[in-house]
């Protein structure tokens, strides 16, 4: 897994590429989230369109990122979630937790007024 970071209107967009499967990915993403929080950046969008393989631990990685950001007054929203990720979110009821978007502009705009 690789994550590229960009910023738009004070919102961080993390662009995920590759497998999201646990193992080292969990530590890597936790570090990314912690660095953002240290820098005072807590409004985060995870663009998942480049994730070609995922499992339940991958979804777990996202949810712990969400929990950490929320605890620090921020949020994690999902962008371009594949059918597979959607099915995993749905069956685990984590779909009730995550706000999901198809369009980056809308995802970024959704933070306005927070």
């Amino acid at each position: 897994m690789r994550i590229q970071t960009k910023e738009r209107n004070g919102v961080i967009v993390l662009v995920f590429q590759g497998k999201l499967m646990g193992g080292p990915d969990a530590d890597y993403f936790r570090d990314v989230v912690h660095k953002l929080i240290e820098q005072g950046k807590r409004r985060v969008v995870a663009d998942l369109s480049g994730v070609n393989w995922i499992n339940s631990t991958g979804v777990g990685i996202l949810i712990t990122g969400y929990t950490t950001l929320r605890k620090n007054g921020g949020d994690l929203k999902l962008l371009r979630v594949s059918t597979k990720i959607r099915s995993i979110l749905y069956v685990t009821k984590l779909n009730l937790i995550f706000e999901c978007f198809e369009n980056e502009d809308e995802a970024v705009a959704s933070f306005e007024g927070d």
Partner: protein
Amino acid sequence: MRDIMAESVIIEFPSDYKYLNMIDMVCGEFINDMDFDHEAANEVSISIIEACTNALEHGNKCCPEESVRVCLTKHPDRLVIEVFDHGEGFDFKYYLKHIPDPSDIHKLRGRGIFIMKHMMDSLYFDMVPERGIKVTLEKMIRKQSGEVA
């Protein structure tokens, strides 16, 4: 046990995440001529990845010398997936009665068995002597009406 109408493919691979997409590809190709709709095929794909992840992580402790063995069998009415590892097993009887809440946002892990159970028509574990855990997953072919074949 052996069904004349059944057709099997067996694949064995080292305990490395990088082989998970090979397994998914093989399984996708294998079920291609079975009457699964897109959603069912998706559930099979997610479940086989969960089962293999558990085998390589918990069973084989990610030791690349230990292999995971997957046996896919096509029956007229269903797909059967068996995943074998070389581990010491776990108390699956207890676990299956106490599957944790998958919507708990404080947990990184512990959702794989729940997901397989919900996405497949049956899931069971066996401890295979001198080998390790065998997970068996079954998915029925449903006809248009939602009836089982």
